C-alpha cells in the first residue's frame, strides 16, 4: 500500500512516517506542497493520502479539489491546525474522508489512519 504524505513541515512528515512504519507501512512518498503532490499523484496514484491544509505554492484544500476532479476514490485524511467547524465542513465538501487536528497524539494519528484504512478494506 502506497501512502503519500503532503506537509510542508518535514518534522510532521517524519512523525507520520514513524507512526506508519510502526503499523507496518513502509511504501511512503512525500511532498512538501500541493504542487509536488499533484505531480507525484499524476505519476502514480497512492492508496492513501495525508494532506496538510496550510502550505506554500498550493494549499491542501486546493490540492484535494483538484484531485477530486479526476479521482473520487483515493482516501484522503486531512491533518491540519485548522480546527474550526466551518473548515472541517469545507474539507468534507472538498472530498476528504477523515480529519485530524494538530496537535495530535501519536495514538490518535494511528487511530485515524487505521480507521480510514479499515473503511477502504471494507469497501473493497
Amino acid at each position, binding site marked *: 500500500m502506497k501512502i503519500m504524505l503532503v506537509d510542508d513541515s*518535514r518534522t510532521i512528515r517524519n512523525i507520520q512516517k514513524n507512526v506508519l512504519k510502526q503499523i507496518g507501512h513502509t511504501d511512503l512518498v512525500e511532498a512538501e506542497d500541493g504542487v509536488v503532490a499533484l505531480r507525484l499523484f499524476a505519476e502514480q496514484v497512492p492508496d492513501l493520502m495525508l494532506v496538510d491544509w496550510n502550505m506554500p505554492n498550493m494549499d491542501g484544500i486546493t490540492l484535494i479539489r483538484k484531485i477530486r476532479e479526476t479521482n473520487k476514490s483515493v482516501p484522503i485524511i486531512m491533518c491540519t491546525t485548522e480546527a474550526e467547524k466551518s473548515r472541517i465542513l469545507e474539507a468534507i465538501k472538498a472530498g476528504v474522508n477523515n480529519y485530524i487536528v494538530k496537535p495530535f497524539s501519536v495514538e490518535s494519528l494511528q487511530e485515524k489512519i487505521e480507521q480510514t484504512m479499515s473503511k477502504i478494506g471494507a469497501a473493497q
Partner: protein
Amino acid sequence: MDVRFINPFVKSICNTFETMCSVPVTIGKPEIKTDNGPGSDVSSIIGFSGDAAGSVALHFGFDIASKLASKFAGIEITPEHDDFADAIGELANMVAGGAKAQFEGVSVSISLPNVIVGTNHNLSASKSVPRIMIPCKTELGSFMVEIGMVLTKQPTGLVAETAGATS
C-alpha cells in the same frame, strides 16, 4: 489588545506542548510589553488576518528551543540541525491554529511560520498594537509567548462589548 484573545492562546500553548512534546506548561502572569526586549535566540512568528489581525511570536533561548524541538521530533535537534527551524515553526503553527479555533465569532486566517535564529535578538512591533507577553515555564526551561491582536470587524454571535482594541 482585546483580552478575549489571551485565554485561547493560553489553552493552545498548554495543549500543543503537552500533546506534541509531553511537556506540561505552567503559565505565568501575562504582562504588557513595554520595550523591545527581552532578547531571545529563537523566535517563531505567525501572522493573523481577517476579522482580527496581528501576530503571535514564540521566543526561546537556544537550550529550551533545542530540547522542545527534540521532544517534538523524537530525535536530537540542535540549532544547527536542518529541521530545527521547521520544528520550531510547526510548534508555533499549532499554537496559532489552536488559538484561532477558539476565537468565537471571529474568522481569521494564519500565515505560514517565520523563524528567526540569532543570539539575543529583539522583536520590534508596531506601537499601535499593544503586545502581551505570556511567560511559560516547563521542566525543560522557560520561554515567552508574545501576542498582539486587534479586531478589525465586530465579531458575530457575541454580546457587543467595548472593542477595547487599543487598551
